[in-house]
């Protein structure tokens, strides 16, 4: 029995090694969102409490927001390419094959990058609409 399963485990390990990049990609967009969130809330709170130059911090955070949106956009684009829905028109990753899992990871990373994009836009809105520390 052990001998029969041996090649299977090797396959799993091989697949996992191949999909490491995909697994990393899944977390990347939410991580950018989290970092942007922490930077915005932390920096604005400290700046307003200490009386530092809010305009400079605001400008820096707006640039950071642009960079975060570009980063998430890039993750989303590569995830979209990995998810083969454009070629197949199939929204559901049914099969249990390695290829299906590969597509599914792209699918999940794409959806996560959409919600991260919305999150970053929402967190950035006060920077645009509220100028200072009021």
């Amino acid at each position: 029995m052990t001998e029969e399963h041996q090649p299977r485990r090797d396959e799993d390990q091989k697949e996992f090694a191949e999909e490491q990049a995909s697994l990393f990609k899944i977390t990347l967009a939410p991580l950018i969102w989290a970092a942007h969130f922490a930077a915005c809330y932390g920096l604005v709170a400290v700046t307003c409490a200490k009386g530092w130059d809010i305009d400079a911090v605001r400008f820096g955070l707006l640039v950071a927001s642009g960079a975060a949106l570009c980063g998430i956009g890039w993750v989303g684009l590569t995830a979209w390419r990995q998810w083969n829905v454009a070629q197949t028109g199939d929204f559901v990753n049914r099969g249990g094959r390695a290829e299906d899992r590969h597509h599914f990871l792209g699918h999940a990373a794409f959806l996560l990058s959409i919600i991260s994009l919305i999150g970053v836009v929402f967190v950035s809105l006060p920077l645009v609409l509220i100028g200072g520390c009021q």
Partner: protein
Amino acid sequence: MLGGAVVLWLLVNGAFYYLSRVRTGEFDQRYARHILIGGGIVLPVVVLTALLVWGLSILPDPRRPGDGLVVRVTGEQWWWRVEYWPEGADAPVLTANEIRLPVGQRTEIHLTSDKVIHSFWIPALGGKMDMFPGRETMISLLPEKSGTYRGQCAEFCGASHAWMAFAAVVMEPADFDRWLASEAADAVPPSTDAAARGERLFRSEGCGACHAVRGTENIGQVGPDLTHVGSRQTLGAGRLKVTIDDLSTWISHTDVLKPEVKMPTYDLELDQLSDLAAYLEGLK
């Protein structure tokens, strides 16, 4: 806001009813996808974005500078010490347990506290703002409609926290100016025999050690200023009405009406109580 909530409620429940009762059976994938993406992603994002933009646009309002009048409120256990500082005033007009504001003008409310943290809240006019001992916080309010609103301490501050309320009266600017002028004046002398007896009782019972009645020898600062207590809408910081009956009840049952309150219960004869109440009720 309520209209929007009703529309959304009807939309969501209408969709639920339609899809579960009217149009049952298997759906075309394309159709289902449109419903899911449109109703589950696009619509919430659009609605939430619009609400967020609107919310952010009004967020700075309570921090805007006022139009001149400053009302300084100190949270006490369990009442409100109130000072009115009209623009350019050297000294405040002192009162208690009632906030009056001119309609259509932004008034700065400067908040502090005596011993514990309280929170100043008039739900109809704006958000809450905490009051800290040794610190001053500020909220500015712009009432748009005249009327009487309820204010309430919104931070647990001890046994009688729930009984720490006040009336917030929003008045036409001219009425407000007249009211402030009369509030700044000294107390009127007692106009009836009962009130005159009550005034003597007020002195002999030592009420003036804690309460001020401006224009008399009573200058205590421990409890609320009573110079115009008869013109207020509530007694004991929102606890009772300012009637002779309620005043008598208050003086003879302070600990029942407001647990752990500093003011002792006075064990007076009924006619003495009604004399004292008549004096206080007459302090218009």
